[in-house]
């Protein structure tokens, strides 16, 4: 069975249709990259999955997670799924953490919401999670503004994977980072995906990221899906002109100065 199944998802604002009947699926343990330029609606799709859409936007269609429709779910059920089955990593690492709470407190609150385990167990989980992204226990006592961008984003990954969710939605997790940090973040995500077996829905505007890490690639433009398929198929034999132009826009060595 598919882990996530999006059927004919349409997102409607007051006057215009932002997303036009899109459908895609994510299988357990798979890495799906949604690629598109700014404004293509790729982030909107992930907001709809977490029911984070602004109140003036209306979503129609079906979003099935393990067979149950998120769009028809009560707030309480939704809260049980959020965080436990679906976890998010956001682009804006600077604001991803509540500024007046220490990192440790975020871990504590997150676990207390979903787990019924002892404090020692929670602390041990936290230590393991921080260690898995290469951060020491001392980071737990720090406030978010005391961490660098890369450290924050690694903490966000540790937090997202803390409860071993089946699906991690990474919404442009590396866009605000420099290229070395983003390389490390993606390497880390890839390693942790292999370790925990979670599926990843990776939103990016950078086809290089999709090319290097994803199993499946989906190309979006102006709220519609242009093309989707295996990574190799998209990278080597793009069908759509837009995909071809995206591929051509990838800078490669040897072009500089021409």
């Amino acid at each position: 069975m598919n882990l996530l199944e999006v059927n004919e998802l349409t997102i409607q604002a007051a006057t215009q249709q932002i997303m036009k009947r899109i459908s895609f699926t994510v299988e357990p343990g798979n890495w799906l990259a949604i690629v598109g330029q700014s404004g293509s609606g790729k982030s909107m799709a992930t907001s709809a999955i977490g029911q984070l859409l602004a109140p003036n936007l209306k979503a129609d269609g079906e979003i099935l997670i393990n067979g149950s429709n998120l769009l028809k779910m009560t707030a309480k059920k939704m809260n049980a799924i959020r965080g436990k089955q679906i976890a998010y990593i956001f682009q804006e690492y600077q604001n991803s953490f509540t500024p007046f709470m220490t990192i440790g407190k975020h871990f504590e609150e997150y676990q207390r919401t979903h787990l019924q385990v002892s404090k020692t167990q929670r602390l041990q989980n936290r230590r393991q999670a921080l260690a898995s992204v290469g951060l020491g226990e001392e980071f737990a006592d720090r406030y978010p503004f005391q961490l660098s961008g890369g450290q924050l984003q690694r903490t966000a990954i540790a937090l997202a994977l803390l409860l071993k969710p089946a699906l991690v939605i990474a919404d442009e997790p590396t866009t605000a980072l420099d290229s070395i940090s983003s390389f490390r973040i993606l390497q880390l995500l890839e390693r942790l995906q292999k370790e925990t077996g979670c599926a990843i829905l990776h939103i990016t505007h950078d086809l290089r990221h999709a090319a290097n890490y994803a199993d499946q690639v989906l190309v979006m433009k102006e709220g519609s899906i242009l093309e989707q398929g295996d990574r190799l198929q998209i990278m080597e034999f793009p069908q759509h002109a837009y995909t071809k132009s995206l591929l051509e826009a990838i800078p490669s060595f040897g072009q500089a100065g021409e």
Partner: protein
Amino acid sequence: MAVLKMKIRKRNWKAGMLVTLFILVGFLAAYTFLFLKHDADMVDLNSRLSPMSLLHPFGTDHLGRDVMTRIFLGAQQTVGYAFMALAAAVVIGLPIGLVAGYKGGIIERILMRIADAFLAFPDTIVAIVLSGLMGPGIENLLLAIVFVKWVNYARLIRSTVVNERGKEYIAMAKVNGLSDGQIMRKHIFPHIIGNVLVLASLDLGKIILLISSLSYIGLGAQPPAPEWGAMLNDARPYFQSMPSLMIYPGLAIVTVVLISNVSGDYLRDKFDVKKEVQL
């Protein structure tokens, strides 16, 4: 030692000032209650308008009542009433502002239009009108003050919340499965508490002035209550012969307003975690 002094001078002058003021007030209060056993309402026409003495450190008023005793009992009244009015205003304004800011949409519009309607009236005028309609008396005056003050809190809190609700950490808390109530309590509330405390401590001064000024024109505390504004009012006819009768309640008002303003600044600094942690 020199370093310590520097530190005190640089960082804690507000705390130092507060401590000094509290010690001064505490000393005077102790003197009143240890050595003077006057009844604040005890009329003694034989010793009316007497100047300062050991028995009457602040002198006596036009009815021979001890001014110092009245000032200190008045503190209970004036400051106590101001606290009550303030607490009620915050208790009403806080949930309204929080919900309006967090929920947005139609709820926000309705709540904020109501608040706007209240805001359209100037404080003093509304307080005077309400006291006039319901009759003079401190209870009605307090109601009037709550009536005009809660709007400030609702608006301040709403604007802070609106500022924060779009940030990613709220979305993060949401996708981590926290309920709206939890998010408001744990992730938004601490943001506004600092602002609210600062506004409240500034407001405390204003409310004391409002109570005193309305008591001064006879709408607030009724005689023989030792309210500071009412005392100022009583002292008016003796202003030229006995100016100290107006100076003492005036100084009392100034002191409390000052204390509340300085503590407001101090609290705001304390609530800022960034200042607390060495970067």
